[in-house]
């Protein structure tokens, strides 16, 4: 991310990878729960959030492959969460494979090396088979929005945080 010192970014990077490990553990547990209880909305929502969180942090550091794969993975999870895709055994097998792939991509990012192209292509194709990508995410350009100004009113000393 432009503008922050190398030291600050390095420190944030350490936290990011710690959180990735936490998210990956949660994702694995969520997929197990989804397998045990068919259409467990709570588990699939939690799994979605785990992948979404990895994607958000990866964007800070420009891990583009990790961002794009996470985007595709969360789109597949959203299909299950929103009831457009049944959590059938073959779908769950693909989601578990995608979770393994996501862990490999996190490790590749941590080691600053690319994932083997053939492995990445296999992961992407497997996800595309259960939830084909429709289009690039919509840009925000078409939003008809003007920022809403607000008058600044200083808070009293008792309300200040520092």
């Amino acid at each position, binding site marked *: 991310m432009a503008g922050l010192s190398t030291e600050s970014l390095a420190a*944030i990077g350490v936290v990011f990878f710690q959180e990735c490990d936490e998210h990956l553990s949660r994702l694995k547990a969520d997929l197990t729960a989804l397998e045990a209880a068919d259409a467990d909305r709570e588990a699939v929502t939690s799994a979605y959030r785990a992948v979404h*969180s990895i994607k958000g*942090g990866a964007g*800070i550091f420009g891990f583009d492959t990790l961002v794009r794969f996470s985007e595709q993975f969360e789109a597949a999870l959203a299909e299950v969460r929103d009831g457009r895709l049944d959590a059938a055994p073959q779908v769950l097998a693909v989601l578990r494979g995608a979770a393994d792939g996501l862990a490999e991509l996190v490790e590749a990012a941590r080691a600053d090396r690319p994932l083997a192209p053939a492995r990445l292509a296999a992961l992407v194709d497997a996800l595309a088979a259960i939830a084909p990508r429709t289009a690039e995410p919509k840009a925000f350009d078409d939003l008809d929005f003007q920022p809403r*100004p*607000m008058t600044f*009113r200083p808070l009293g000393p008792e309300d200040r*945080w*520092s």
Partner: protein
Amino acid sequence: MPQAAALDIMVVDDQRAMRALVRNSLNQIGCASVSEFPNGSEAMQSLKARPVNLVVSDLTMPVMDGLSLLRAVRAEPSLANTAFIMLTGRTDAELVKQAIALGVNNYLVKPFTLGTLKRKIESVFGPLT
């Protein structure tokens, strides 16, 4: 035209790395008074006791997400002067439309630069000094 240092800002995100990033970025543009919360519920509890000038919140969080927090802030009369900027991913346009309908002041797409963060705050409060 407020001084950046005069702004009290709350950052709400379930990810520690993202909170650290936003806090560091705010500090870099001169905003020193920054509090952090991991979800909307804890943020709202604090806001009722201690309002801030600006909430910068993520959308997707456990317990209470960003849209629910925005809805709660807009429904609370004592927070009528609290501005709200939503942090969002590039695929979240539909959720941003909901945030606009709920009265968000502006939104910030991740990843962002310091310049963009400053411009988004200035679009709400005017130029920061």
